[in-house]
């Protein structure tokens, strides 16, 4: 086993308070015992990674580098890899997709197998994997989005989830048929102030000819070129200091040609002395918001605004044209006056002097909700004893990606977390990325997070010799070869990395005919059709 740096058990690196000393000492002692039971390293250490987005690939990259005999089988629902790098990153951010170059490098390893077009928990039950692997790593992300729970949200026209809209313009088969109506009127409202909301705003406000040079789906270009939307409001329930967008995305919108920005009312921004005392990132963001855009509203063709302290209550349709959305009613909020400028400040409903709650109507013909993604349990997790935290949308873990269960369960080994709570680990089961820590952060965040999970696996291999998921006498060590026959019987038609390369070439070819880097296949049948 070659680990690049001397290994210090991650669980032992947590800052040891006095009260934890006995625990940590006993942990070291237990490690010493385990290390003496050494282990064969000649047989492959078989890892199944569920999901082929940045979390799965960065974990595979680190694991292949740290565990010499690791062999990774990466399972993906779609015939093609890369998850949100391909289907979530905005088409006008090609540089962010450069991480795919690294993933392609990883996939060139003979110790890496891509198994696409396999829906684990769907066509292929998860439990079929267990006997054939030494570890299973869940990195399947957050497949749904949060709802607002307001009246009218389920309308079939004019009301969209930002997640679906992003999937649609990025060529994701699941949302190929969303067909959003962008011709209903001039006003669009986006609820939520994260980077997904700003991506949607930028796509709606951008010059279509600029988007033509990207890999945005052709059908989306067509819909966007007939869009009537020229006014986008990005609405949040809290204030500027509590918004979750990042500065790069704001700056891009402020610099869009021929698009003006409504100045943010001064009283919503903190006073200068508060601004200068803010942490650097927040300070720069507030300064940028205060500066606004240089574009002249009188010559701009489109405009946008950030609207704060508003919670949507209901959607209202036109009395004359009942299919036409006319406006959204909002309740006004106010920030906790004791602490209005902290990032975690709470809001409460605002009341008028009459004692009535303050409301406001905002015109809207097209409506997007963008209040965050949501993790879901993969069907069949329970067969492996893996719990799911529904409220947080994550698989419970020890912070390093080892799946944990409450200590009352029989399975796993007991451990004490820094907060004093008892947990048990489920050996051989791990998670990384959004299903581990929730759907936030940029690719760099997921990279760090996936590395920490891979490091935890490497540490556990070093400690146990690799018989993690199954006892030595029960593991087949076959990986995909052990699963394949049953999968084929169930009707699975898996795609390989070479298949993806063929699809990739065909997509680039389609793109070059349109002077674009790529034209994705919007349907799974089309992808499989080139094989």
């Amino acid at each position: 086993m070659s680990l690049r740096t001397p290994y210090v058990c991650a669980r032992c690196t947590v800052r040891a308070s006095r009260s934890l000393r006995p625990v940590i000492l006993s942990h070291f002692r237990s490690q010493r015992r385990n290390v003496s039971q050494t282990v064969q390293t000649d047989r492959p250490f078989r890892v199944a990674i569920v999901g082929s987005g940045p979390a799965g690939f960065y974990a595979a990259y680190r694991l292949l580098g740290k565990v010499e005999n690791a062999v990774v089988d990466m399972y993906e629902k779609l015939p093609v890899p890369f998850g949100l790098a391909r289907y979530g990153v905005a088409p006008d951010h090609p540089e962010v997709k450069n991480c795919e170059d690294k993933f392609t490098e990883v996939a060139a390893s003979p110790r890496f197998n891509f198994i696409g077009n396999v829906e684990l928990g769907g066509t292929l039950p998860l439990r079929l994997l267990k006997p054939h692997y030494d570890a299973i790593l869940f990195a399947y992300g957050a497949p749904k989005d949060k709802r607002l729970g307001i009246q009218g949200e389920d309308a079939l026209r004019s009301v969209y989830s930002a997640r679906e809209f992003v999937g649609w313009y990025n060529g994701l088969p699941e949302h190929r048929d969303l067909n959003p109506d962008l011709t209903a009127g001039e006003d669009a409202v986006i609820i939520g102030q994260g980077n997904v909301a700003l991506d949607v705003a930028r796509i709606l406000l951008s010059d279509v000819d600029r988007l033509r040079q990207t890999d945005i789906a052709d059908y989306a270009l067509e819909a966007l070129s007939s869009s009537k939307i020229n006014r986008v409001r990005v609405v949040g329930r809290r204030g500027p200091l509590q918004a979750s967008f990042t500065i790069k995305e704001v700056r891009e919108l402020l610099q869009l040609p021929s698009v003006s920005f409504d100045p943010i009312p001064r009283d919503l921004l903190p006073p200068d002395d508060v601004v200068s005392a803010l942490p650097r990132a927040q300070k720069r963001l507030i300064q940028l918001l205060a500066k606004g855009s240089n574009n002249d509203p009188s010559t701009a063709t489109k405009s946008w605004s950030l609207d704060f302290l508003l919670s949507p209550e209901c959607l209202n349709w036109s009395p004359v044209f009942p299919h036409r959305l006319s406006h959204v009613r909002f309740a006004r909020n106010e920030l906790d006056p004791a602490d209005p400028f902290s990032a975690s400040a709470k809001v409460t409903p605002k009341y008028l002097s009459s004692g009535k709650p303050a409301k406001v109507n905002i015109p809207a013909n097209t409506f997007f909700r963008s209040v965050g993604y949501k993790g879901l349990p993969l069907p069949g997790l329970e067969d492996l004893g893996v719990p799911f935290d529904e409220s947080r949308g994550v698989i419970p873990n020890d912070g390093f990606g080892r799946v944990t269960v409450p200590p009352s369960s029989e399975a796993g080994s007991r451990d004490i977390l820094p907060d004093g709570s008892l947990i048990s680990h489920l050996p051989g089961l791990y998670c990384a990325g959004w299903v581990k820590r929730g759907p936030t952060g940029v690719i760099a965040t997921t990279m760090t997070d996936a590395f920490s999970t891979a490091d935890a696996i490497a540490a556990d291999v070093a400690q146990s010799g690799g018989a993690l998921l199954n006892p030595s006498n029960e593991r087949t060590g076959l990986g995909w070869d052990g699963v394949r026959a049953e999968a084929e019987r169930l009707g699975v038609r898996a795609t390989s990395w070479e298949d993806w390369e063929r699809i990739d070439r065909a997509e680039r070819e389609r793109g070059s005919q349109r002077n674009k880097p790529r034209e994705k296949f919007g349907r799974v049948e089309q992808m499989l059709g080139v094989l």
Partner: protein
Amino acid sequence: MPVTARKTARPRKQPVWKQVDTPRSLSATTGMQHGHITPPKPGEEINVSFIDKDGEKWDFQVSEGDNLLDIAQANDLEMEGACGGSCACSTCHVIVEDPDMFDKMEEPSDDENDMLDLAFGLTETSRLGCQVLMSKELDGMVVRLPSMTRNLQASDFQAKK
């Protein structure tokens, strides 16, 4: 006379899996070559040192115009360039050890600062490696690779509301 390196530059080392394996195929979509640097001409070497995450110091002699990300990757230091060196992520974050050296450098652009705002362990002398081009003025510069890991906090285990 060039300063003698305390530790000579390691030869380009491949990731472990590349050392043990022969890649089965060259992908048609092989990405851009990272870590491309020009060997310095005799007499025009510029000295730069990296302190890695384990506190080890590595000294290199490089050419004018090479950037810190390429230098680190060409010498197999643990530095990722997720966006391929296009100033669109924060994975090549470095910390300039000497504040006076930092002041000698060109001001980071707004775009670079926007990315640095998202970096782990940001400091007053942080830069993105891909944006720092070596020049004679920066001869002798020492940069530190920040630790990407963070300590676990009790709050990591509490349900977020």
